[in-house]
């Protein structure tokens, strides 16, 4: 993938490759819609997970700070959107205002989590972030009394879809003979956001900030001796990662139309972290691959495991959910054995693991 997309070493194949990927991304939703609109929705959710993984990758992959409560920022973004664009408070702000607000609020929470954990590393940091994630979720669950802010476990319903003037992302319409369903429209929006996030990530990685994070991850004292303001750089990593999570959360709320604290449980944090680790911590393409794989494989299993068993044994022996966890565990074990730095490891991670042998 790297060699194929390297514009400098290999410009012709790279441009052809990029063009093919571009065309595939444009055509994809219609191909999926032909199978079933559910698959477009699944794809949208997968892209949201790619966004989340890229955000978490900044914290975990670039700066080396283990964050087990990342889904909290997704929740913050989602709730910000839901509160400002739903009948709950009877506020209906447009999405291009609410999404940046969501990013800003999540960014604030990111710094809020980062500040007290500046001196923590490894296991200790993991425990505090895990606690933070749970605190946010529990707040969402209980902030319905005495003043009803989040509507508790019932969640918030009838969240506004994205709307620009009279153009609504939720309505089905036919443009130029093509059938644009709601999910297809959201798909294109998500692709645009995704491209922007990828560009930001690539630029970050090769910037002074990226190098500072690299140094902090390697050796914090030495990083300080290099003249790096480690405190600010760590806060920046938390805040940036969080704001990506906040934007994704806002889009999630709008596409679903309904959110409740149940969507933001610890397992979701672990799932996003697994995507980052499986794909290849610190490598943007690896992280994307990890997120796509872990989003799609369970869905494919959901549609194939039951019919396959019916055909083979005439009845359902094992629940698809069980098979999913079984395969997931197996995949992680295999990965740790054969590709400990991820499917597409970052060059640096690979070296780190090698130098530890």
């Amino acid at each position, binding site marked *: 993938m790297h060699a194929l997309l390297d514009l400098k070493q290999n410009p012709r194949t790279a441009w052809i490759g990029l063009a093919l990927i571009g065309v595939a991304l444009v055509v994809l939703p219609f191909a999926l819609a032909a199978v079933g609109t559910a698959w477009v929705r699944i794809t949208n959710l997968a892209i949201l997970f790619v966004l989340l993984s890229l955000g978490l990758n900044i914290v975990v992959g670039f700066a080396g700070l283990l964050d087990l409560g990342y889904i909290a920022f997704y929740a913050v973004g989602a709730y910000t959107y839901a509160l400002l664009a739903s009948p709950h408070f009877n506020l209906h702000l447009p999405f291009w205002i609410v999404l940046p607000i969501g990013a800003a609020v999540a960014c604030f929470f990111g710094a809020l989590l980062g500040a007290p954990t500046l001196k923590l590393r490894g296991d200790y940091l993991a425990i505090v972030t895990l606690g933070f994630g749970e605190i946010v979720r529990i707040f969402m669950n209980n902030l319905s009394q005495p003043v009803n802010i989040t509507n508790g476990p019932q969640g918030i319903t009838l969240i506004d879809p994205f709307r620009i003037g009279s153009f609504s992302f939720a309505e089905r319409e036919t443009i130029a003979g093509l059938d644009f369903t709601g999910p297809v429209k959201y798909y294109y929006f998500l692709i645009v956001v995704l491209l922007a996030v990828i560009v930001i990530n690539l630029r970050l990685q090769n910037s002074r900030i990226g190098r500072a994070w690299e140094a902090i991850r*390697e050796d914090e*004292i030495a990083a300080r*001796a290099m003249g790096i303001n480690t405190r600010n750089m760590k806060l920046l990593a938390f805040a940036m990662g969080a704001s990506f999570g906040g934007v994704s959360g806002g889009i999630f709320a709008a596409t679903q139309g309904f959110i409740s604290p149940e969507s933001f449980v610890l397992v979701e944090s672990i799932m996003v972290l697994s995507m980052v680790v499986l794909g290849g911590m610190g490598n943007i393409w690896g992280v994307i691959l990890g997120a796509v794989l872990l989003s799609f494989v369970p869905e494919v299993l959901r549609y194939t495991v039951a019919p396959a068993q019916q055909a083979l044994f005439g009845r359902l022996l094992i629940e698809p959910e069980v098979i999913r966890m079984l395969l997931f565990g197996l995949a992680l074990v295999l990965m740790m054995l054969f590709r400990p730095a991820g499917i597409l490891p970052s060059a640096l991670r690979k070296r780190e693991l090698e*130098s530890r042998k």
Partner: protein
Amino acid sequence: MSDPVTGSSGSASALLELSKLEVAYGGIQAVKGIDLHVDKGELVCLIGANGAGKTTTLKGICGLQPVKRGTIRYDGKDITGRPAFELVRNGLAMVPEGRGVFGALTIEENLAMGAYVRDDRAAIATDIERIFHLFPRLKERRRQTAGTLSGGEQQMLAMGRALLSKPRLLLLDEPSMGLAPLMVQKVFETVMTVSQEGVTILLIEQNAKLALEVSNRGYVMESGAITLAGDAKTLLHDPAVRAAYLGESAA
């Protein structure tokens, strides 16, 4: 104004000046009010046994450990309690104990990291070449990761990296620690080379003999206080120093 203790006159040209510095480390007062100064262009060593408070002194200077009392002046300005990253930007660099090279980065990347505070790309490239000229061994291995280097080579890399921030004052913490005798010799030669390049150095060492041999002046530290100070050659022949640190009997 001549200082009877340090044997060096005047503080007008002092680049670094500690007065009545007290630093606590983990609840223990490791540095108990020391006075020390390093003049421009000097190579000064701070020697003493393990646990005498040398490293704590250094950590206090570069803001890695909070100062309890006293002041640190650098280039005429009070820098007490300023964070390390800010000091580097003002030309006060340090090589931490245990070298602290970035093991997974290549030698070139490590050196580039040393120039983090600078933004003059062209000059950085020539300075990296200069470091390679100074340490030819590093040049041979420029694309190797720092983790694969020997201890002595890592020490060279750490020093070269510190030099890339264009320091005026370099603090070295136990550069000979854990090195083979032959490599220790090499590292001290390097320290002298760097000093001859015009960089002022405060060298913290357990290896008293070698440290005093390369230095202009020396301070002897014992349980948190400076017990002896003066010209390095004089200290080297001081019976008390020889007895305590050079393994000779006082008689």
